[in-house]
């Protein structure tokens, strides 16, 4: 089975095959043989040619988070044949800024039609007693503002579209 895996800014084509109870994984030029055994509800013990990796796993919207020794990799997994993300689809084209947490919109810092730089603050949200400025991830024009000041929003709610 073929996947496209993306994490920490890198994307690679990954092939997975079963091999006598283990998994043969090809990443680019490299071939890894994984002995992968469940260890409790959220953990895997993975041996790769004698090297031990103790792994915590979390299902995410785009794939899986892989936790190893205090580090965390949010790995996006796409089926390389169908080209679809395992979880929900990713959006290309215009940037849709969604709420990273539930909270209240304290301030809208931009107007529709305004041009913004990447890193420019566009909204202020309050959550967990802190005010947090949400920034544009890319430069562009504010196409649409979906929220008003004072409005409570759910996590994942669409806030603003930058074209």
């Amino acid at each position, binding site marked *: *089975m073929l*996947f496209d*895996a993306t*994490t*920490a800014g*890198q994307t*690679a084509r*990954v092939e*997975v095959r079963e091999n006598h109870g*283990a*998994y043969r*994984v090809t*990443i680019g030029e*490299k071939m*890894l043989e*994984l002995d*992968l*055994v*469940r260890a*409790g*509800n*959220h*953990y*895997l013990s*993975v041996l*790769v040619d004698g090297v031990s*990796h103790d*792994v*915590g*796993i*979390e*299902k995410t*919207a785009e*794939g*899986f*988070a*892989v*936790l*190893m*020794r*205090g*580090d*965390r*990799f949010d*790995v996006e*997994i796409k089926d390389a044949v169908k080209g679809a993300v*395992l*979880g929900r689809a990713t959006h290309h084209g215009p940037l849709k800024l969604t709420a*990273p*947490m*539930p*909270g209240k919109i*304290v301030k809208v810092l931009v107007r529709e039609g305004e041009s913004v730089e990447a890193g420019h603050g566009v909204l202020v949200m309050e*959550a*967990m*007693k*802190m*005010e*947090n400025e949400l920034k544009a991830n890319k430069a562009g024009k504010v196409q649409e503002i979906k929220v008003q000041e004072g409005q409570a929003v759910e*996590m994942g709610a669409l806030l603003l579209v930058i074209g």
Partner: protein
Amino acid sequence: MSTPRKFSKVLIANRGEIAVRVMRACRELGIRTVAVYSDADRVALHVRYADEAYFIGPSPSSESYLRMDKILEVAKRSGAEAIHPGYGFLSENATFARVCRDAGVVFIGPPEEAITAMGEKTAARRVAVAAGVPVVPGALHVLADHAAILGEATRIGYPLMLKAAAGGGGKGLRLVHKPEELEASVQRARSEAKSAFGDDSLYIERAILKPRHIEIQVLADTHGNAVHLFERECSIQRRHQKIIEESPSPFVTPELRERMGSLAVALVKKVGYVNAGTLEFLVDENREPYFLEMNTRLQVEHPITEMVTGVDLVKMQIRIAQGEALPFAQKDLTQRGHAIECRVCAEDPETNFIPNPGRIESLRVPGGPGVRDDSGVYEGFEVSMFYDPMISKLVVHAETREAAIARMLRAVSEYEVTGIKTTLPFFDRALRDRRFIEGDFDTGFVSRLQAEKDERVRPTEIAMAVAAVVAYRARRRTPVASGSETSSSSLWWRLGHRDSVTRL
């Protein structure tokens, strides 16, 4: 001077890890504990941990944990003789100390007068100035309106710090670089201060560049004795909130330690301070200390002092409130070894530490020698958006600073949380940074680190390979599990749970 008595029941007017910390001390002292809780906290750890628990209102803290009337009602109903306020919420509220006294309930903290004298930030600075303690140049008074702020800002010059007079914990605090930013910053600081403390008063002081944030822990009893318990280094901050602390400070010389300790004890004695408190100083590059403010309460980072001095600060707070004299003098106190604390917060360190509330799907805490986890959560707990994102404090103690850093990295490597993002991956990076290891840092450390490329060698390929195998398994199970594996739940993951030695 009060006659020593023993409490048999104490109410803890707080939640989260600090409520549990106080209850642990009570349980060890044979004191029964009373929790209060809001709608969001029916199954919070502090409710589970307490001997008794009473509901006090809706989730917003202004309707529950800040409601003095309801808390005192619970104290009366449960028969609690004393109230421990923890930190935050009502802990530095002089009115609350007074109404407790009026109700015949002991407030485990300083008397109302000492909170008034030292708790309000500009008043404390005036006391300090009068006592000859150096302070940061700035306003010694709360600034009433925008005109006053503008005037004072022009007088002091930029960069400057805007601060909430009633503040603490980095809330209502803004660094302003230039005049154009002032108005927006004032608005946001006021609104944060209002919602956090119910008081939007602000003051201004000059921003000291590349400052060290170093604080001195003090204890004073009702018999006129006061000691300091040395310093804590609190320069590693994000959003002006501490995130890594250590004791001793690698920056503090024996002479500076002695000087700051003496200043702290002198100030404390001058205002008749009682119970635990902390004097915060900024120390500039020439090792000149400037008194900043006093926190008239227990500090989040108190465990590092406990580990280095061997003194249980919470038990001492209770004993002082019971009217006991300090069981040691200054000369009996020594620093042994080195301690570091990392604040584990439900925040995404890759996205500017944005809060990341949600359900903790799994939780594995580190163990073994020299590791202490002061947690307020558990596996399956829903971290609420209503309260502070700190879920736990990870503290280590070892013989030397070098050994303590190695131990903290080891502890972080054992700590795993799924379901929410936390600050743990940040610690792995920060503690391996050469500047941290060499003790060469100031309060700008975190933002500089964020702006830089991550230099660590990370097992990215293994992460991809494992995720791909797990995805492969999820796919293969699709016909059986009827698509459930693509939901955000980890349900599919639990399939076959009973056979733990299953090769996936």
